[in-house]
């Protein structure tokens, strides 16, 4: 098969055996690759009765037909399993250099089951798997683990996706980290690794990616390349990356401040992306074959690291009431090296701060820790306790949603989560399509299932053409948002299946179903049309829902925290607005029934 590696690697870590099977062209045709293919595999292979942190869970690494080609910004890979945090479908994607290297091993998917009796890592090459026992790597951070594995094999081209201490301790929201700082953060994929006693997956490939029609493919690549370089946001994105959202969201009054109690941050200029770029940032970093190279490398107080992305920056500044930028940079590095989802951690912290302020949780409830807004020292302590599962950290490592069940209904309601997944840093009261996306997303509160960034772009005419109403481009309107989300879900799946970056593929709107059909056709020789792809991805969205239904998810779970439905923001450009979710949901379900 052109484009694809054409093989699936199945690994059983209990018996330390592996099998290589051909990728069935008919099987892959209706999912293309990446996330959609992973979900299909999970739905087929997983016994839904099995414990997410038991040997029965199926951990899948997946890339797509265009991963590792010249297509810009297509360096992602997706990791899928049943989530230990939410108990439902879990997956998380990351960029960097792991995905393309995995592609060169000739495996489109690595499917891992079982549980090793002691800590091991897998070295995956074209020939299959070497199981390497690694007791000496226990407790080591991600960067040290990566270096140790490269050193052990004398090969610096090896790419490593590893867990840190949090994954080893099975913190439910533990992350998997590759290229040192590229994080599969959400849904606890690091905890699944830890539960299998897998410290890392190392990949090293040497197979070329063969294309059906290289010249035609190159033609499509040039168009995407041009669209990126000519994009009006190119300079801004390349300078700031996602941290541009600090100012952008504050400007429209939806920057989570003091745990979503406010949408305006008075000290945003101290913690903005611009501030980071003009102080501690020393250079740009890029994923494989991306011209936006939006990632920031920084030096601060003796720490060198990459990032933080917007979610971590906001999560450890305004969301927890802190104006301390160096502290956020420190937390970014700490969390990446411990291997923990920054959103899950900042939700625990923000929730504790609000609950202690309101007297719903006392310091005695949490080992005597008094935590108030912007109290960096206590946050630092909490993070250490959680990663090591020490003291109250052991209970907090279960996640904000589970931990809150020890307390009153009032305290539980303050957890900003949907389906057990902590909400991202964007207040849905001022971005209604995002509100709908959080409510319906199949991995729980999440924007990336649709990323309806379109509603922030004020493209009224395009809105009328695509969604039948200008209101689709009005962030405060509910009208047209179900149509926008239904459309964006498909484009999000398209980018995820091609393992493209959503910032580029979706937010910068450089690829659509037509251009994707041409690119996939030139690369693989499989003829798709835009309509065909839309049908396939529509089916794939349904496949997510069917799988979640098997996990017990119902429509009643498609909701938002009460704050967003009933408490309007008091100040700023989003003042007075709440999410009219039932209206959007009704329309959304109607569109999905069609």
């Amino acid at each position, binding site marked *: 098969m052109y484009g694809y590696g054409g093989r699936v690697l199945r690994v059983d870590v209990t018996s330390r055996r592996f099998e290589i099977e051909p990728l069935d062209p008919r099987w892959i045709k209706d999912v293309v690759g990446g996330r959609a293919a992973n979900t299909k595999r999970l739905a087929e292979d997983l016994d839904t009765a099995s414990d997410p942190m038991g040997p029965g869970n199926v951990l899948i690494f997946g890339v797509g037909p265009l991963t590792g080609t010249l297509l810009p910004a297509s360096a992602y890979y997706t990791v899928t399993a049943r989530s230990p945090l939410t108990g439902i479908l879990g997956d998380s994607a990351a960029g960097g250099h792991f995905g393309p290297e995995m592609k060169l091993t000739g495996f489109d998917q690595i499917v891992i089951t079982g549980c090793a009796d002691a800590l091991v890592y897998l070295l995956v090459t074209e020939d299959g798997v070497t199981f390497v026992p690694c007791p000496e790597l226990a407790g080591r951070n991600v960067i040290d683990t990566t270096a140790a594995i*490269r050193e052990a094999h*004398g*090969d*610096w*081209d090896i790419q490593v996706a590893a867990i840190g201490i949090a994954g080893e301790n099975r913190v439910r929201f533990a992350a998997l980290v590759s290229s040192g700082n590229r994080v599969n953060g959400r849904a606890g994929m690091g905890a699944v690794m830890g539960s299998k006693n897998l410290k890392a997956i190392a990949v090293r490939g040497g197979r070329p990616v063969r294309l059906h029609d290289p010249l035609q493919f190159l033609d499509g690549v040039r168009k995407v390349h041009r669209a990126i*370089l000519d994009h009006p946001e190119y300079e801004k994105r*390349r300078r700031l990356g996602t941290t541009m959202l600090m100012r952008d969201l504050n400007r429209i009054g939806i920057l989570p401040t003091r745990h979503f109690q406010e949408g305006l941050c008075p000290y945003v200029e101290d913690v903005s992306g611009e501030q980071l770029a003009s102080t*501690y940032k*020393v250079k*740009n970093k890029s994923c494989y074959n991306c*011209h936006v*190279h939006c990632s920031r490398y920084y*030096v*601060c*107080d*003796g720490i*060198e690291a990459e990032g933080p992305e917007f979610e971590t920056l906001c999560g450890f500044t305004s969301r927890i009431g802190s104006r301390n930028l160096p502290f956020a940079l420190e937390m970014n590095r700490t969390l990446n090296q411990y291997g923990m989802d920054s959103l899950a951690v900042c939700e625990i912290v923000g929730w504790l701060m609000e609950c202690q302020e309101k007297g719903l949780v006392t310091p005695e409830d949490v080992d005597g820790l008094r935590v108030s807004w912007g109290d960096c020292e206590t946050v630092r302590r909490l993070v250490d306790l959680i990663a090591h599962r020490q003291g109250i950290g052991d209970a907090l490592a279960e996640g904000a949603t589970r931990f809150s069940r020890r307390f009153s209904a009032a305290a539980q309601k303050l957890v900003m989560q949907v389906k057990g997944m902590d909400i991202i840093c964007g207040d849905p009261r001022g971005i209604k399509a995002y509100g709908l996306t959080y409510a319906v997303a199949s991995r729980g509160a999440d924007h990336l299932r649709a990323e309806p960034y379109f509603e922030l772009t004020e493209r009224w005419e395009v809105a009328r053409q695509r969604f039948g109403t200008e209101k689709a481009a009005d962030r405060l309107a509910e009208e047209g948002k179900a149509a926008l989300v239904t459309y964006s879900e498909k484009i999000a799946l398209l980018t995820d299946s091609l393992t493209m970056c959503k910032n580029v593929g979706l937010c910068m709107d450089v690829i659509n179903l037509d251009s994707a059909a041409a690119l996939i056709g030139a690369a693989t020789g499989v003829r798709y049309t835009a309509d065909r792809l839309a049908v396939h991805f529509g089916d794939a969205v349904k496949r997510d829902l069917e799988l979640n239904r098997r996990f017990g998810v119902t429509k009643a779970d498609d909701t938002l925290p009460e704050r967003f439905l009933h408490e309007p923001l008091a100040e700023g450009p989003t003042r007075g607005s709440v999410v009219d979710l039932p209206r959007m949901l009704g329309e959304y379900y109607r569109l999905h029934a069609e």
Partner: protein
Amino acid sequence: MVCQQCAERYCVACPENALVLGPLGQVVVSPTLCSECGACTRSCPIGAIEPVDGIAYVCDLCGGDPRCVPACTQGAISFASGAAGTVELAAFKPGSERLAPSHKRAVYVHALGRAVRDGWQVARD
């Protein structure tokens, strides 16, 4: 990391005489003479030459107009014509033969990066 057109030219001591220097100072590989023995790969201290599909593969400056230079949107790659032979790699030679090319590249890049890093720290302190 590409060939630095170093002063020492360890690689051209090819047992098959397959490597010669071109007019720009670039290394030119003869596809007929190259037997893929790997002597050049072992001798290069910074891992800039490796066999690929039966022939030694090394930067040949694209005939004097390296395509990678305009391709880099960060301006990180520059080409100084006439600068061949100005980079000395003798300091990286001892012990390098044991290492894989990717390892040698990592060592070289880290060494170059150290000065830059020290500059960052000074600027922040």
